[in-house]
Every structure is written in structure tokens, then in C-alpha cells.
């Protein structure tokens, strides 16, 4: 009895706390946790979104892994996309950050310019780049190729060039964002370290290899891991640049990424159980990448 009163007294004391977190927690349970459990259930069913789901056990997962060439195409494309943008994107944005970190004029002007694509919607960027890549001749990029003596490319209509085109756009769009992260990392390196190296007679290259790179490692790891996660989830630019009456993903599925495939299965082919299973596979992959990320961040503390 006494204990019970204590509990209620405590509850009264804590009612403000619960009141304060209630909106956030309720929204979380309804719109994150609930759907998460529901999609796990649906991933074991055959479900078209209209009639009742039919339990099929592990059949969706088995089919995805063992008899679905489109899934493997989408994995291959996603890996190709990721490998295509991360090294070039990281190197370019690091170079930019180091250039801006020097004592130069118009520092702020450059930062603003490079950051602009990061505040533009990917949809707008994609329609602009679709237009840049367009046409045999009148597209700006093909005109450039012709004027330097190369042959024009039918970028978004060719199974070979669609994904590279999207990669080029993505590198362009992402460098400013990563530049800001690298710049923040560079500013944590004390100038005294460089001064000490100057006194020891180190040249620029030695300073870069022995000071900048090692001290920038945490930022580098962060940028690369975030890049992995984001490019594994790439969808919007694929949707805009490859949408046609035949669906999304480009000619012969040449730019079908994993999330584009999920969207296609779920919302065009209405195989929602199957698409839920795809969602969980994406979840698992990103979960593993995040765990690796956490391992790295822990490692950084004790070097």
C-alpha cells in the first residue's frame, strides 16, 4: 500500500517529464517503431497493399537472393555508383578545403558558391543536369565534347553512360558539403604543429602526409562512411533522370539502384511484401556500415 502511494507520488513528480517527452515519444512509436514492426511482418508475406497479406515465411528473402537477377543488377549498379563517386568526391572536396584554408581573398565567396548545390533540391539539380546531358548536339555537355574534338554521347539513353552521367552530377553536387566538413576538420589542427614542422624544414608534401592526413583521419572516416550510406540510398536523381513510360532505372536497368528497385516493386508492381523484404535488406546493410563506423570512431579516441 505504502509502496503504491510512493509510486503515484513519484509519478506526480515525474508528470512534467513525461508530458515533455510525450509528443516526441508518441510520434516516434506511431510513425517509426510501428511501421518498422509492420514492415518486418510484411516482409514475410505476399502483400499487394489491398487484399490481406498471405504468410509465405522466408520465401521473399530466398527469392531476392537466389532468383532475382534484377536485385543483383541493382546491387551491382549501387556499388558502381558508390565506387564512382566516393574517391573522386573525397579527393576533390579535400583539395578544395585545403585551398580555401589558405590565406586567400574571397574565402567566403568561394564557400558560398561551392555550398549552393547543397541547398538546392536534388530534383531541381537533376532536371538541370538532365538538360545539360540532353541531346546529340544542343546539350551543353555534348557541345563541349564536340568542341574539344570528341564524339557526342547519348548520355541518358545509353546503357553504358547513364550511371556515369549521374555519378558526374553527384560529385559536382556533393563536393561543397564535404568541403565544409573537411574545412571544420582542418581548423581543429593547431597551426603550432605546422610551425614546428617548418622549423624542422619539412616541405609542403611532407607536411600534408605527416600532419594533415593523419590528423584529418576522423573527418575522413566520417565523410567516407556517410558517403557510403548516402550513396547506398540514392534514389531521387535516379528517379528524375531515368523516368520514362517503361518505369525507372534507365535503359536495360542500367541505372537501377537498390532503392529505385524497392520503389519499383512496391509502388509500381504493388509487390509490397517483397519490397518490405528489400527494405529490410537495405536496413541490414546500412546497419553493418554504421557498426563499422562506430568501431572507427571508437578507434579514433585511443590513437
Amino acid at each position, binding site marked *: 500500500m505504502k509502496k503504491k502511494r510512493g509510486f503515484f507520488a513519484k509519478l506526480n513528480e515525474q508528470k512534467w517529464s513525461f508530458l515533455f517527452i510525450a509528443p516526441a515519444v508518441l510520434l516516434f512509436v506511431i510513425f517509426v517503431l510501428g511501421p518498422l514492426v509492420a514492415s518486418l511482418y510484411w516482409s514475410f508475406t505476399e502483400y499487394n497493399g489491398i487484399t490481406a497479406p498471405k504468410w509465405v515465411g522466408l520465401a521473399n528473402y530466398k527469392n531476392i537472393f537466389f532468383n532475382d537477377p534484377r536485385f543483383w543488377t541493382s546491387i551491382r549498379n549501387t556499388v558502381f555508383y558508390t565506387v564512382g563517386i566516393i574517391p573522386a568526391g573525397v579527393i576533390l572536396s579535400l583539395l578544395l578545403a585545403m585551398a580555401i584554408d589558405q590565406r586567400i581573398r574571397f574565402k567566403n565567396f568561394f564557400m558560398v558558391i561551392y555550398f549552393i548545390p547543397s541547398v538546392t533540391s536534388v530534383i531541381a539539380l537533376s532536371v*538541370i543536369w538532365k538538360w545539360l546531358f540532353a541531346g546529340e548536339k544542343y546539350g551543353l555537355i555534348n557541345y563541349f565534347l564536340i568542341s574539344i574534338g570528341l564524339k557526342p554521347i547519348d548520355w541518358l539513353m545509353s546503357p553504358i553512360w547513364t550511371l556515369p552521367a549521374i555519378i558526374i552530377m553527384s560529385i559536382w553536387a556533393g563536393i561543397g*558539403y564535404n568541403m565544409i566538413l573537411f574545412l571544420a576538420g582542418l581548423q581543429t589542427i593547431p597551426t603550432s604543429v605546422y610551425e614546428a614542422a617548418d622549423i624542422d624544414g619539412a616541405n609542403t608534401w611532407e607536411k600534408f602526409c605527416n600532419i594533415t592526413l593523419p590528423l584529418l583521419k576522423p573527418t575522413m572516416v566520417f565523410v567516407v562512411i556517410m558517403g557510403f550510406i548516402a550513396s547506398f540510398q540514392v534514389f531521387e536523381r535516379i528517379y528524375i533522370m531515368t523516368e520514362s513510360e517503361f518505369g525507372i532505372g534507365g535503359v536495360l536497368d542500367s541505372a537501377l539502384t537498390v532503392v529505385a528497385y524497392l520503389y519499383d516493386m512496391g509502388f509500381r508492381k504493388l509487390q509490397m511484401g517483397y519490397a518490405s523484404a528489400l*527494405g529490410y535488406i537495405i536496413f541490414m546493410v546500412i546497419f553493418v556500415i554504421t557498426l563499422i563506423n562506430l568501431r572507427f570512431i571508437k578507434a579514433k579516441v585511443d590513437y
Partner: protein
Amino acid sequence: MENLKSKHFQNVAIKGVIYAFLFIGAISIAIPYVWMFVTSIKPVEEVQSYPPSFIVKHPTLLPYHDLFRLIPILRYVWNSIYVSATVTIANVFFCSLAGYAFAKHRFWGRDKIFFVLLGSLMIPWQVNLISGFILIRKLGWLNSYNALIVPVMAGVFGIFLCRQFIMAIPDDLVDAAKIDGCSEFTIYRLVILPLIKPVLATLAILTFLQQWNNFIWPLIVINSSEMRTLPLALSVLNGQFGTRFAIVMAGAVVATTPMLIVFLAFQKYFMEGVAMTGLKGYSKM
């Protein structure tokens, strides 16, 4: 002396290379935007003329005129503003409220609940795409503002950000207010809120940006014409009039310009916000 001179020359050369690199980079960033704008004021016969030209011989507002005639673009601008602003205000309020409780209150299950919330940051949104759609349909919210606003009114990342910031506020301040007889909500309003303004500004800007540019969720829960937000409208425009580039570029200008103005006005906050949070999901890579 000779040595010093060559050293000086070397420095000038390095500076030159750096400026050249930065200028070429800046020009390559700018060209697509300039091209978007130039195309949007070209008459039809100039759009696909060869060679392509940045100089418009007969500038015209016809593409914009067509755009306004073909789709209710002002309605879409309003939808985007309304949804982004509401979500932003809701996040600033709910996240700071919850962040305060998680940072300064002691209550049953506090750390466990927070841990679960934090863990959910690892969940990619795709996994809830199907079930989120079904839930919205069950609630009868398809094609409504509710569908766009309610699910994202209290983002976990915002709660985390606020909690981290509020934890740095000394307990003494909160305790002193308690001794003065302030209610919990008064403490939140008069002690905590004024002190966390910088982080709320960051949260507001990043939330607004994310909502303004959000595409996939509206794509799934909105299919009536008048409820579209700008990115969705632009994608439909691209699907229907994909070959009439001047009109699509006019749409891109309308969709891009408002955010560009906000960015130029608050650039410092944007870039500091990204540097501070390194926000997942905002990366364009």
C-alpha cells in the same frame, strides 16, 4: 637574396595555382545554374539551337507565362512554405521540450528511452516506405497536409541536438529557478529556451531545408494535383513536359530561388550547422 627571391616567386606561383583551381571550380558550380536561368528566358527556337549559347538574342518571359498557365505553381510554392514552416516550428518546440526533459530531469526509464530513440537514427527511411504509406492510408491522410507534417514533427536528431546543448547548461540555474517557485514549463520557457537559441536556429534552418527539398515522402503520400509540394511538382513537370526544357527550367528557377535567397541571407548558420552536426541525410553524395 637570390634564394629569397626564388622563394617569393614560388609562393606567388602556388597562390596562382590555388586561385586558378578555386576559380575553375566555382565556374563549374555556377554554369549549371546560369544555364538553367538562361534557358528559362529563351524563346522556343533558341532553346535547341546549335551551337548552344549563353547569350539570349530575344529574351522572353513566355516560359514562365506557360508555367503559370500549365500548373498552379503559386499553390505549390504555398504548399512548400506551409509544410516546411509548420514542420520547423513543431520541431523547434517538441525537440527542445523533450531535449530538456532528457537532459535535466530524472525519471523512470529516461536513459533507456533515449537510447532507443538514438538507435533509431540508424534506421534508413526506405525500410518504412511501404508501411508508412499503408499507415497514412489507414489514417485517411493520403493527399493531406497531415501526411506531410505530422510524422516528422519531432525528429530524433533534433532531440539529440537539443539534449546535448542543454546538458551544458549548469544545473544551478535550473535549481535556482525551482527554488524561486517556477513551474517546470516556466523554467523551460524562461531559463532554457533563451540559452539554447543558437542551437534552435541551427535546427530550424536544417529542418526547413530538409523539408523544402523533401521529395520521396510527398511522392508516396500525395497524388492529387493541388497538394503537391515544389519538388514533386517539378518532377511531374519533368515527366509531362520533359522535352520543353524552357518551361522545366522556369520551374526549376521557381523551385530553387526561394531557398537560395534564404541561404544567402543566413549562409553562416547553414554552413556552421553542417560543420557542427555533419548531418546525416543532408549529404548529397
